[in-house]
């Protein structure tokens, strides 16, 4: 366990110094900082539009960080030969892989926390919400962190056998399908009038591809009238879904990476 933790902490150290990630983070923070001004331009409730847009920026920035962070993780280690020095020590390949993944997840936690703190402070400065509302706003990014942990597992799985550029488009594609199209396919798979072929495709997509839409629980925060029935159970179910999916992806990654010639 020590070996995994040491590799993970080194990965965090490296991730928070990677210029490309810092640039993405900076762009995210800059976008967040102009959002309060956008609320005035909208006909909808200023609070709703501000929170909704802030979440969208935070989510998009986090996704980009998660993808860029993980797609280069293994290829960089192989190209720079750092992997050889590490694997020549008493370190198993699976320990290396799990350590790298854990490091990525921790780096994401750090970056999402930073953006969340900035977002909440900004909201407080412009909207003067109650402490209760601020706490409520700060909970959603935890769901996004879980989503990004799953996305990182997808990126890492593909990086065990696919080149970074292809992996970038594949992982981003998986995220877009899982975020935007999954609710649509879900509806199609449950609709009795859907054509059998489309229903088959919809069933496969909703059951096999990760459903990133699960993590977007911002509606009750933006629209106080809406509630998630049994919210605590929903969140725990999502935690379980994430753990199961990440576990499967890591297991597949280990199997593929173990056979890979490095």
């Amino acid at each position, binding site marked *: 366990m*020590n*070996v995994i933790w040491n590799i993970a902490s080194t990965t965090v150290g490296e991730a928070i110094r990677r210029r490309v990630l810092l640039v993405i983070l900076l762009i995210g923070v800059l976008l967040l900082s102009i959002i309060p001004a956008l609320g005035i331009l909208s006909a909808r409730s200023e609070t709703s539009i501000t929170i909704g847009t802030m979440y969208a920026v935070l989510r998009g920035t986090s996704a980009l960080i998660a993808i860029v962070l993980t797609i280069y993780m293994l290829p960089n280690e192989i190209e720079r030969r750092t992997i*050889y020095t590490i694997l*020549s020590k008493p370190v198993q390949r699976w320990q290396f892989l799990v350590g790298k993944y854990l490091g990525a997840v921790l780096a994401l936690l750090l970056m999402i926390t930073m953006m969340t703190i900035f977002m909440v402070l900004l909201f407080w400065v412009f909207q003067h919400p109650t402490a209760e509302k601020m706490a409520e706003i700060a909970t959603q990014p935890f769901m996004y962190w879980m989503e990004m942990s799953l996305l990182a597992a997808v990126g890492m799985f593909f990086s065990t056998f696919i080149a970074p550029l292809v992996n970038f488009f594949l992982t981003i594609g998986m995220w877009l399908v899982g975020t935007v199209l999954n609710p649509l396919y879900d509806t199609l798979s449950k609709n009795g009038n859907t054509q059998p072929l489309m229903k088959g495709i919809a069933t496969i997509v909703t059951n096999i591809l990760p459903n990133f839409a699960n993590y977007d629980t911002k509606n009750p925060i933006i629209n106080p009238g809406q509630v998630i029935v049994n919210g605590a159970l929903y969140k725990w179910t999502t935690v379980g879904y994430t753990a199961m999916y990440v576990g499967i992806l890591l297991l597949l990654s280990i199997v593929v990476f173990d056979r890979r010639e490095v």
Partner: protein
Amino acid sequence: MAAAIETQKLTKTYRSRNLGKVNVVDELDLVVEEGEIFGFLGPNGAGKTTTIKMLLGIIAPTAGEGYVLGREIGDMDVHRVISYLPERPYYYEYMTGMELLKFYGSLFGIKDTAKFQALLEKVGLAGDASKTISQYSKGMQQRVGLAQSLLNDPKLLFLDEPTAGLDPIAHTEIRDLILQFRDEGRTVFVSSHELSEVERICDRVAIINKGVIEQHGRLDDLLRGGRIEIIADAVSKEFAESFKGEDIIVSHHNDRLILDMPETSDVNAVLDALRGKKANIVSIVPRRRRLEDLFVETVGRADIRGKAKAKAAVTEEAAK
């Protein structure tokens, strides 16, 4: 003496879209004794790094067997007593020299700061322990690499091109460290292109080309069979001409004779003849073959053999 490394028909085959199956390492039989510096030589793409990776258990052989310190390759326990310095290694640049040793030490469960400091002193980096790797020169990075490779007090070190890209001063420093490792009783397996360095430090060498061992043995034995140069003054041109023969090179200028002859020639007879003519013998210098000559000759011969084999295969194919 026990074998630190032993391989029997160790083979690594890759599949290539254009070439089909390619044996990058082909039935390699190798024995490296404990406590020696072993030079593993070969041109680019000869299979040196692939062999090292197999011995380290980083990649699995396609066929054959290999043992490192008596254990089968891939055995994780052996990783506690071996170490590896890759060619032109990259280390996490944000770390300081001390942090780097702490990280690699942690992979062995070593947390002894005094040990890290002692290792940095050993490689001459004690004063630069708090500098980041990005501030280190290439030579310093190589030295910190050697320090990390000594963390587990290894019995066997694999050094892949340890002096590649270094300036002459750094060359000498690394060479001295490698010699020090042998004095400490460690076995050192060096893969290198720097033939003059290898000739200076290695006890035995193997020359590999296209995955096949072409030469293997003690350096003294492999370089034996050289030539002897005799220089004598007060020798007439006519007398000098009398030494001319097959494989004997005679130079004569201003009554000075320079004879370049095979080591196997009857040197005493030549000396007696010169003394008989009252010649003044200036020097007798045995000249060993240089490793570079042996390397070029071996690799060149193997290439000619390979081309002939390929040509024969084409001819045979055409005849069918």
